[in-house]
Structures are given as structure tokens and as C-alpha cells.
């Protein structure tokens, strides 16, 4: 298999796994979980979206990927912000009671991860990796105090 093919496979598998997680919560009905586990689940979804984007951009590296393309930077930063907004614990009880909205919000997490990584890489090569790293750190970090007390 070529490097490009392998990367496309990684992109597809991460995307499918992330979406499968969403479908699963829809199919089984969302079981009420504590806020910390909920945050961590979101971190996994975000990672799925970001991994798919990173593999896709690596597979389709454009020759013009070196110069800066400023139009992609703002979405690459608003992605993490959007991801964080979707992790507001105040919404969790409502989400737990409404599986469809819950599944949609999970799609939102995947999109936030995807947008962050994709737009970052489109802005300038390697920046998508950086924005992904920091978004992931924020998502995992949230599990230790955002709506959570000891």
C-alpha cells in the first residue's frame, strides 16, 4: 500500500470510529454518565475528527502548503473554542435526556476536531498538529475541574 493510501485509510478509520461512537449513543439511548467521563468521551470524539483531518491533509499535501494562508487561521482557532462551548456541563443533563440532540452535539465535537486540524494544516503545514494538540489538551484538561469538583 502506498503512503497516501495508508493515510487515507487512517483518515477513514478514525472518522468512521468517531461517527460509530455517535451512532452507538443514538441507538442505545444515552446512558447518564458523570461529567468527567462525559468530557473524556468528548475528547475521544474530538481526537477522531482531528485524526481524520490530519491524515487527509497529509495524504493530499499540496505543493503550495508552505506559505501562510491567513484565511484558515481564524477557523483553526475558533474550532477549539467551539469544541469547548459544546463541552459546557450545563447542557449535559439536557443532552442526557435528549438522545438525538446529544448525538448531534457529538457530531459537533467531531467537526470541531476536524475543523481545528484541517484549517490549521491549510493555514500552514504542521500548524494543524499544533492546534490539535492544544485542543486535545484542553478537552482532557476540562475533565479535571469544568463542572467537576473533587
Amino acid at each position, binding site marked *: 500500500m502506498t503512503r497516501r493510501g495508508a493515510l487515507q485509510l487512517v483518515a477513514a478509520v478514525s472518522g468512521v470510529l468517531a461517527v460509530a461512537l455517535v451512532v452507538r449513543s443514538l441507538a442505545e439511548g444515552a446512558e447518564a454518565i458523570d461529567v468527567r467521563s462525559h468530557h473524556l468521551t468528548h475528547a475521544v470524539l474530538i481526537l477522531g475528527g482531528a485524526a481524520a483531518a490530519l491524515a487527509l491533509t497529509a495524504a493530499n*499535501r499540496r505543493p503550495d502548503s508552505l506559505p501562510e494562508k491567513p484565511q484558515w*487561521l481564524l477557523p483553526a482557532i475558533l474550532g477549539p473554542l467551539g469544541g*469547548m462551548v459544546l463541552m459546557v456541563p450545563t447542557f449535559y443533563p439536557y443532552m442526557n435526556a435528549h438522545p438525538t440532540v446529544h448525538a448531534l452535539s457529538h457530531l459537533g465535537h467531531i467537526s470541531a476536531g476536524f475543523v481545528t486540524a484541517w484549517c490549521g494544516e491549510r493555514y500552514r503545514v504542521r*500548524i494543524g498538529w*499544533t492546534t490539535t494538540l492544544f485542543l486535545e489538551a484542553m478537552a482532557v484538561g*476540562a475533565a*479535571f*475541574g469544568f463542572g467537576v469538583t473533587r
Partner: protein
Amino acid sequence: MSDTIETLARPAHREVTSDRTAKRVMWLYIGPGLILVGAMVIAGLGLRMAQGGMHTFQPGLFYSLMTLHGSAMMVGMALCGMGLLWYLFAQEGPLNPTTAVVACALILIGAVLVAISVLVGGFGAAWTFLYPLPFVGTYWPSWATGVFLAGIACVVLGWTIWCLQMLGGVLTRYGGLRGAFAWDLVWSPSKFAKSGQTPPPPQAFAVLVSAVDGLLAGSAGMLVGVALFVRWLDPTLPLDPLWVKNLTYIFGHTLANLTIYMPLAAVYVALPRYTHHRHWHTSAVLAVAWWATLVFVAIAYFHHLYMDFAQPRAVQYIGEAASYLAAFPPAVVTVFGGALLVYRSGFRWTLGSMFLYVGMIGWVVGGIGALLDVTVAFNIYFHNTLWVVAHFHTYLLEGALLFVLGWVFHCLEERSGIVSSRAVRTLIGLGVFGGGAWLLLGWYLAGAQGVPRRYALQPAPGTDISWWASLGGIILVVGLIMCGIEAIRLARRPAHREVPAA
């Protein structure tokens, strides 16, 4: 990945942003930055005089002004460092000015929002506060809290954009992290020399460290900012106070630290220009020193949490060790290197070179004050006393600000082809260094006596010390005003082609 590295090595990417554009961007940052700093020096003097009983502020106004002073100083100093680094890196590789303008605009919008929240709303929780502040026990309306948090969010967004732009620039220019860190120079020096490659210049390390640690600080700021904003909208939301405190200090401490490391690049670039044919080269030692700085700046913040018994014990040790180790790379490599560079070099003393040189002294003195404070045996006495205010003012006011002023005067001297007279230099030196030292001494002495920080009315002997320390503050302000007048005088001179200091 290999094809990426090949493409990155293409020399086509050496083209740089035009000097004219780069200078414009630089002044776009440094101009408002210095205006903010200047206005806040006056506010700071008002605060110090109030603590000395020279006049009184209405209850609450002191804390609101202190909040404005702290936040705006941090933003102002950061803007100066960002503009300076942007300009210096634009000489190395292409940077898009639009990105820089957007980042600057966001930061300035943030500063305006903070000013509205403080001056109109009376917000007064200080620039870093500990949860449950700013929600419990407040004397300002709730909207002011929201506006303050929104303002800080804009600053964080602008800062993050700048960091990403600089990181992208460094990685592209030097062929990824390996090149940017000068990895091969350190681990296989002979192979590196044979390859004919050149390592990144010293100022590129300042860019790299500011961008990486800056992104860490920005993410922590964004996370805690969202959490506090949501808590403002939904008062039932629980937040873990220790978590909030950790994030607050990853953000606040790291940002404050970086405001010193950013203008340091001016020393690398401008100081050698005042010597006879000496240069500041990137050596393996310098590279390793900056690697260490990258790590230690990121984890030194733990020393702010010594008093938190719930904090894991291991990180307390890490915090103390990292704070000590953080002092070595700059002190040993940069300041010692700077002193050697100047020694017997036929150094030309001008306002620019004087500020750069004295800035290194201020940095070391403030650093020693900080090291004493992070020593647990001392911290028991100094924690949250005016000693803290003393050491951070030493390296911000008599270190980082002097680096910025040194750079500004270097640019003005270079452009106008003239330097200030000895009399002007002496007067400004007496005002800025003499008055500054006098002001700082007051904080050190009061801190050693255990006078607490952030008190409008201080317990004895705070008020007496504040009174005479304010006189030093007045002298400092006079020195800074003279400095401003001299800068305007040089700026109004027609441009000259020759470089006086080279």
C-alpha cells in the same frame, strides 16, 4: 513526511517580508504598547502615592485601578515584545502582515473591553484572581465581570493567533522542530558544520520559546476563560478551585515570564551593533539554554501554589527545582554572554545601548529576588507580600521595559544617524534607573517586613515606606517623560542613511 522536509528545504522560502512593511507592523504593536505602559505608569504612581497616604482613593477605586494597571501593563508589555519579535523574524522568513494586524486588533479590542469593565463598571478583582472571585464578595455589577472576561478572551485569541503565526514561520523557515531547535548543531556538531547549514540566529530561539510556551499559556487561558464565562452565565456550575488556580497561573505566570523573554531578542540583535565587529552567534550552549528555558518556563508556575496543601506534593518539588533551573540559562548564557560581548569591545554608549545593558542588570536583580521568593524557607515569609511586587517590577520595569526602550532608541538612532548628548543620557539614566531603584527598594523593604501585597491601606511600616518610595516613583516618571521627549526629538529628525552604532 520526508517529501515535506524536502520541500521545506527549498531556498525559495528565504524571501522575506519587506523591511518597510515589517517596520509598520512593528510600530503597530509597539506604539499602542508603549502608550498603554506610559498611561499605566502614571496610574501606578497614583496607586503607590495612595498607599503612602499622599492622597486617598474612594473605597474600591484603588482595586479597580490596580486591576487596570496590572492588566494593561501585561497587555502593553506583551504588545511591545510581540511587535519586536515579529519585526526581527520577518527579516528571516516571510510573515503575512494581515495575520499580525488581526492579532493586534483583537488584543486592542480586548484592552478596550477591560478598560470599560474597570472604568465604567468598577471591576476590581485584579488581573489574576482566585475563584470564587470574581463572582463572590464583589462590589461591581455582574455585567462588568462578563465584559472583563470577554476582554481577556479577545486578548487570548489575539495572542494565540500571533503564537501560531510565529510558530508556523519558525518551523517552515528552519525545516521543522529539529532545525528550529538546532538539534543537529548540538548532537552532531561536526556533521552539521560539514553540511554547510547555518543554525537559527539567537533571536529565533526567543520566537520559538515564546510561541510554544505562549500556546500552552493561551490554551490554559482559553480553557479557564470559557469555564469562568460559563460560571458567570450559570452560577450553579461547579468549578474545582484548585483546577482554576492551576490554569490561572499557567496562563498568568507564563505570559508574564514571556513578556521578559520576548524583548530579550533585542539584546541579541542590537547590542552587538554597538561593539566593534562582534556578533552574537548561535552556539550549542545557547541552543541548550533555550531548550531548558522552554521547559522550565512552562512548569515553574507551580511555585505559586506552595500554600495549596491539596496540590500533589511532587509538583511542589518540581516547581521549586524548575524555578531555580529557569534562572541559569538566561543568567549564565545571555547575561554572561552579553557582558563578554561588551567587555573591551570599544562599546559605544548611547541611550539605546545603555537601556539594553542596564536591562540585563535589572533582569538579574529581579531574578535573584524571585529565586529568594521561590525558596520554600523564604516563601513562608514572602508569600503574597510586597516582595513579590518588588521582584516582578524589577524585571518588568528595569528589565523588559528597558529592553524595549533600548530597541526603540536603537531604531531611532539608526534612522536619524544621531545619538543623544551625554547630559541627556545622564539625566535620563538618573531618572529611570535612580528613581526606579528607589521605588523598587520600597517594595523590597516592605516585603521583607511582611507588608501584604494588594492592600490599599497597608499595615505598618507599609504606609511610611510607600510614602518615601513614591518620591522615587515621581523621579522615575520625570525620567520617563524626558525619555519620551528625547524619542520624539530623534523621531522628528530626517532619516539618515548611515548607521551610527555599527
